């Protein structure tokens, strides 16, 4: 079965013009995927590997390092806000190597797809992923669907890539600051074992995700989930989303830990979440789903990056061991900062 074929459109300046002027280049395409459309907002070139020259990468397809591009994808993944994601890969090469080595392209796409995750939560449905391969050469900008299933990538025939001017201006950003305060007991088996602590934390974040899915959202003070998102109210830059839990439902009751040995807490603190959706296409319900996903993603990523940082400084083992004096050890995950991008949109980064 073929996967759904959505309409694909790309920003005139940041994709078409960019590719025309770029020469040999390989990188990622970023944009928004909705039920009917791929809207490609920009191309992000993969930086050259240290000690190499960018041009060297594209003399022939053998020099393309799909693992390196995959790593690039992993890092860029973390910079995405809700609603925006890596849609695929672009390659700009006068030699038109993409046509000649589809197999290599398939490997490239597969490598990138494996790296587009958020924390431990895959961003795309498990049954099949679809990415876009944009290839430009000799003033033509084309694209293909690349369907990935069971580890194999199936390329589709090429089509012309439509362009639209100022595509990013069709998007509005919504934001919220979600108060998180999780306190999770650790059973005896998890004590002093950072990996087991990580498993327990993941479970708690997963429970938060389930409970969050039952919460109501008010957008700019109004509850209507089926309303189409209109323009951002005057005096604001973003739609403001508030999340409420009902007094009638308590969510999922966590399992009691058998003789808890320690406790790990995440919070109290605020998780800033943002998402960008196409104005007048998206409903408030879609904003709600995107923002909730972004909250969970961001929380998960912070824990990921904390673990990576502790690993790098060899502090991981000591950070989750018992203290003789029964004090509390406080670790500080990175906080999120938002960086303006493409005039009105954002990417983010995490800063220790």
């Amino acid at each position: 079965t073929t996967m759904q074929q959505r309409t694909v459109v790309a920003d005139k300046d940041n994709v078409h013009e960019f590719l025309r002027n770029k020469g040999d280049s390989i990188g990622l395409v970023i944009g928004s995927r909705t039920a009917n459309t791929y809207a490609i907002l920009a191309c992000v070139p993969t930086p050259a590997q240290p000690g190499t020259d960018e041009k060297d990468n594209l003399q022939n397809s053998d020099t393309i390092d799909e693992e390196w591009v995959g790593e690039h994808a992993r890092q860029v993944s973390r910079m995405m806000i809700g609603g925006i994601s890596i849609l695929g890969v672009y390659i700009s090469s006068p030699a038109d190597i993409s046509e000649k080595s589809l197999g290599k392209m398939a490997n490239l796409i597969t490598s990138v797809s494996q790296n587009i995750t958020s924390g431990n939560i895959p961003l795309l449905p498990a049954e099949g992923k679809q990415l876009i391969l944009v290839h430009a050469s000799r003033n033509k900008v084309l694209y293909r669907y690349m369907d990935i299933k069971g580890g194999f990538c199936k390329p589709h025939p090429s089509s012309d890539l439509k362009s639209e001017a100022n595509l990013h201006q069709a998007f509005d950003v919504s934001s919220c600051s979600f108060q998180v305060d999780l306190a999770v007991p650790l059973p005896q088996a998890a004590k002093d074992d950072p990996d087991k602590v990580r498993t327990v934390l993941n479970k708690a974040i997963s429970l938060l995700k389930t409970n969050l899915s039952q919460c109501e959202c008010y957008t700019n003070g109004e509850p209507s989930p089926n309303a189409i998102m209109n323009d951002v109210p005057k005096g604001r830059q973003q739609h403001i989303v508030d999340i409420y839990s009902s007094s009638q439902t308590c969510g999922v009751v966590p399992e009691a830990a058998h003789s808890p040995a320690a406790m790990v807490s995440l919070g109290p603190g605020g998780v800033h979440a943002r998402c960008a959706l196409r104005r007048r296409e998206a409903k408030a319900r879609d904003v709600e789903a995107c923002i909730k996903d972004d909250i969970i993603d961001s929380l998960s990523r912070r824990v990921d990056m904390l673990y990576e940082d502790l690993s790098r400084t060899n502090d991981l083992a000591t950070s989750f061991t018992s203290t003789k004096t029964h004090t509390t050890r406080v670790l500080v995950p990175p906080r999120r900062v938002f960086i303006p991008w493409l005039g009105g949109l954002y990417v983010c980064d995490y800063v220790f």
Partner: protein
Amino acid sequence: MSCVAMRSCGVMPTDAWREERDRLAGIIPVGLDIVGFYLFGTDPSLSLSTFVSYQHVRSALTQPLHTYDHSADAHITPQKSSLCGIIIYGDEPPASLPFSLFTYSPSPPDVASDLQLVSPDICNATQLLHSNYNLVHFPFNTILDIISSPDRISTDLQQCMDNLSSKLLNPSNIFKCSSSISTHLPDLSISRLDVLVKLTNNSSQPSPAPSLSYSDVDAKATHITMPLRGHVCGYVLPSLSPSQVGAIIAPALLNQMGHMARGAMLAPKTQPTIYHFQPPGYGHIISTCYMIEPGSIAEDYLGKQRAELHDLLLFPHDRPLLRTTNAILFTGPAPKSQASSSSSSSNHLLDVHLPLPTSSKVDGRQALVQGSYEYYHYMQDDIDDRGWGCAYRSLQTICSWLRLQHYTNRPEPSHLEIQQLLVRIGDKPPSFVGSSQWIGAFELSLCLDTLYSITCRILNLSSGAELASRGRELAAHFASEGSPVMIGGGVLAYTLLGVDWNESTGAVRFLILDPHYIGPDQGKGIRDKGWCAWKGPDIFRKDSFYNLCMPLRPKMI
């Protein structure tokens, strides 16, 4: 409006008074408060002035029942300017309590000079409550999730409850009131409070990013998680906004959560469940927290809890009032097409006698059936029992009364089931089943005993004329037992629902519910045509014997 017995009177230490008040605060809804007290005892030195001279007593009585203030507070600020007080000497509490008012001041009052009579308005308190106030109910669902060690558990629990409660009633939450009804309380204006708890903080001063902390836990600590499904009630002025209602409910919420959590800690396999009751004739709602064992029948093991409550609330111990089946249920607003006349899910009319005039025709007093019953008569339920089924129908009416008083859940037996039962216990031969043979008061008493373990008093009268002189006995029956009576004679059977009796002249009239009626179940027609009506003693034939089956209330709660 109601009287509550404190566990022991006299001089209790301050902590005990506070415990009593906390307990009371859990039972009495928000909006109501202690307005007075009564003292009852046999000690001649018991005096009003001595009693109120104890500081902690005055403090316990004058502070509002629903308050956040748990701090030990010896300083008394008279919150109420007056209390009702009455002191009674004797061996037995009297049936009714006259109240007198005295003005209260920080120094012990001079009782003699301050007595005044209470205005009649206070006696109509229930009516005032129902017409001037809304009943608000707030069902909530939250999770108790706590890690604590045995030595810290009560502090940690209190802390947890405080947090949960303030999270639920934070002013930045959204409060909504929607209309609600209860079939138990048809005349009351009821609304349900819902709260949307805000989980985001989008103010200009955002909170700092969350940190991850890791801490050891006491070796003796345990982790407890359980859902707390509670339900707070209160009487509030209709003019209040939903968030003001939330603020008023707050102390009751905290109190109830505390009760539930502490109850759950003491009995871990049970689930604390809140029930609300308003027994017939009682002035207001009372709330209780029963510890329910999931999967078992609550009524069986809650007997002790019910008995304690019956004592506390001065309820008689001869009728079920606080079983889970007595509980009030609240639902969403009724669709407009719902008929206003109350009838149960069956097609039998409920309490068909009620609209009849209550004034005595013999210058005496009416003594009526207490509680609800359903009207059973000929031809109902697709059974043609014309000419022989009247006593069966009367029995079914009595069984419906037992069910509606919550003595049983069993549905009323059919004619066939009644006959099969009498054969099974050996009273009738097997040919009785399927026949159109009559039954009498004796057979009724056998059935009631077998089915429900109910004892009946049988009255054998050799002539119908004797009934005219049995006014006192029948009035006493309705006053103490209040159950419908079957009158069966050589000719007919009737159901007796009450008597109108003049003590001095002996004149008596009978409220008869006639099971011989054939026709549609419409109350007005039935009453107008005399099928449920007051009749004089002349309806009983002098030349026939009559046997009365008078069921006695089982002494159970």
